[in-house]
């Protein structure tokens, strides 16, 4: 007679957890569409289709049941995260290739759901960034800043045929991100106060980008409320990023951007609530999560300021993914009744 107790369970399924993560991304995505137009939705759609087809094929090859592992939603989370991380006017094959890299190299080569050492979305992103630096750093400027207004049909045309517009037109429609812009301008010995006068800057971060980040922040708070993620990771990450940039900003305000700028620019918010919180590739102990968040924030700051790339989240996350098992083993909590 098998003893199967407990007979009762009360837990959201993996699918529900992943669905809530997707839901939490929606405010940010909606604002993304509001600021930059529909291009991002095309990317999300392409990524989703790629993930479903690729995963089905891999699951079939691995002789695993297809339905439960597609419905668990983890593939979609990866796909969406990658789709919102790449420029919205990147050619269609960028997102398709990126998603393939995520799912094959980031996820299934390690054993699929639950076994991935690295954050799959960041694996794909890092390979794309290294392989296609120009495409990956050409961001569309917010639609309301454009001289020639670009409608959603134009966006689709650009995504599916990058030669549709002459290069000059396309260049006029895109720019570097604020982080990138500051980096290049600083090398030209411009003071930060002048650099930030550029039209791509908004109140605290990039124009429009700061709004999207507020959307992600709202989604992140929803995940905290729903207990999908614990507070340790986002708090440790954002607090460390804030503190580090504050120290540098106070010391040399004309060279180092303000702490709020660092938090509301690039992928900081997305990283804090959606990327480092991937449970599979992060530490599991409460202390470990805090160290993980601190470490990634420091590395992000170092890469942004001193590194070769304007944004360092993907590399920082991947490097710390390697450390996660070690961090776990060094931060085991005290057990009841132990010294």
């Amino acid at each position: 007679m098998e003893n199967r107790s407990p007979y009762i369970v009360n837990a959201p399924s993996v699918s529900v957890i992943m669905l809530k993560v997707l839901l939490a991304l929606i405010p940010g995505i909606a604002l993304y569409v509001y600021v930059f137009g529909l291009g991002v939705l095309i990317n999300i759609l392409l990524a989703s289709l790629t993930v479903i087809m690729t995963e089905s094929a891999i699951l079939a090859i691995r002789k695993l049941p297809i339905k439960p592992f597609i419905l668990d939603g983890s593939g979609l989370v990866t796909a969406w995260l990658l789709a919102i991380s790449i420029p919205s006017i990147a050619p269609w094959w960028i997102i398709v290739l990126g998603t393939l890299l995520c799912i094959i190299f980031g996820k299934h080569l390690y054993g699929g759901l639950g076994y991935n050492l690295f954050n799959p979305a960041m694996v794909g992103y890092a390979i794309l960034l290294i392989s296609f630096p120009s495409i990956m750093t050409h961001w569309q400027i917010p639609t309301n800043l454009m001289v020639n207004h670009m409608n959603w049909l134009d966006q689709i045309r650009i995504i599916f045929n990058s030669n549709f517009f002459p290069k000059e037109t396309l260049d006029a429609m895109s720019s570097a991100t604020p982080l990138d812009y500051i980096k290049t301008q600083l090398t030209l010995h411009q003071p930060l106060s002048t650099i930030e006068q550029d039209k791509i800057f908004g109140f605290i971060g990039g124009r429009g980008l700061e709004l999207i980040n507020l959307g992600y922040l709202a989604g992140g708070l929803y995940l905290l409320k729903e207990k999908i993620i614990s507070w340790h990771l986002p708090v440790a990450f954002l607090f460390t990023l804030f503190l580090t940039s504050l120290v540098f900003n106070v010391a040399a305000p004309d060279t180092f951007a303000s702490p709020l700028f660092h938090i509301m620019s690039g992928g900081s918010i997305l990283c804090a609530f959606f990327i480092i919180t991937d449970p599979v590739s992060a530490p599991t102990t409460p202390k470990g999560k805090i160290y993980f968040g601190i470490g990634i924030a420091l590395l992000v700051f170092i890469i942004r300021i001193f590194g070769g790339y304007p944004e360092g989240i993907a590399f920082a996350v991947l490097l710390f993914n390697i450390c996660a098992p070690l961090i776990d083993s060094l931060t085991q909590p005290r057990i009841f009744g132990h010294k």
Partner: protein
Amino acid sequence: MQLKNIFKFNGGVHPDENKIASTRLPIAKLAIPKKLVLPLRQHVGHVAKIKVKPGDQVLKGQIIAEADGNISASIHAPTSGKILKISEEILPHPSGLPDFCITIEPDFKDTWIEKKPISWKKIDKAQLIEALSQSGIVGLGGAVFPTHMKLKINQNQSIHTLVINAAECEPFITCDDMLMRERADEIIQGSLIAQSILGAEKCVVGIEDNKIEAYEALKKAAQKTAVEIKVVPTLYPSGDAKRLIYLLMGIEVPKEKRSVDLGIQVFNVATVGAIYRYLELGEPSISRIVTITGAVKTPQNYEVLFGTPLSDLIKAAGGSSNKTKKFIMGGPMMGFDLPSIHVPVTKAMNCVIESSPELFPAPKPVMPCIRCARCADACPVNLQPQELYWFSKSSQLEKAREYNLFDCIECGCCTYVCPSNIPLVQFYRYAKSEIIAQDKSKEAANTARERNEFRLARIEREKKERAERHAQKALGAQDKQAEDEKKSTIAAAMERVKQNQQENIKN
């Protein structure tokens, strides 16, 4: 009811209580059945020694099997009647294996043997504990450890606090709740007796804040006594002794130590009630309160004679209302499937739940662990269940031990919160049994090796000794020869002397 001075442990879960259904009606007395089947092993320790033979007439309360040694408990006839047989019967145990039982055919006269209340205040402790060892009382919370052993405290271990466990944290179970509502006086009196035997300065009752009526009843009964009634939050597994001690006193009982080592003893409410009945009324342990609930038609608590077939209890509760015929003994968190509805009610049986697909749906398909660590958040021991699972699954048993697998109390909180529906507790049980088996075989191998080494050494020694003996013998033989030669020379000389003399005489 206020939660004051409570020390919260990590995690814990709060499942649907499902306790109301079985508390609507008062405790009822289940009629004497046609047949009583009493297992000889209803407690932790040695099997009781049979004192009767088939055909014997027994009276209610008469010992039919006697405690064998200290860690054992006697079994008494729950009613008067005739011993029918002594045979192997199926028991309410997860193994489903049969064991020896005494079957009594009741005469329905229910004649008591002469009751002998014990004036426990007057006799000395050794005598009192000796008397209690005849009572058949064991821990009625489910642990079924012989109670007299828990009252027998060494000279060097003084007990300062007696904790009465009234938490009853598992869903569905209400036998202690109802007992407290209806017999609070017996519980308080029993607690005072136990406190006095142990010489404890304090007595604290820990009760979950979902049992308001029971709390009020205890409060009233304890009015003029020094017994403290303390409310703990409704949070499974607050009824686990080590967790309850922490909730009440903020003391963590260290690993591999028992609470008595820290001067704390814990008894379940029903157990102290039984102590009271034995000492004050002279009634040994022959019945208990059992909750019958779940899918049965009328869930209720019954006072049931030990040995009563479970089917009688089910019938009394209106019978089964679904066709699965599956019954769980204990609560839904730590209970187990009963092998049959014909098993007897035993000292350990606190609750029987009729299962139904609505109450306990079949487990959902297992998904991979996503390391969300909800299990770690729920673990009352503060373990990392996701790591233990990983090590157990991959048979890295040494790692599992290193991550304190043996601290796991198998409460099931981790499984309860797992989004991937992984039967974590089963993995831990498997890993524990594997480690124990490995340790045993390692020990056996060590013993065998030692024996072999000893044997080889012995053979070597014997060989050496034999060789020495041979050498000695050889040497001895030489000596003998030399001596013989000497002797013969002397003899020859003597002979010559004799001859000479004789010749001289002749001459």
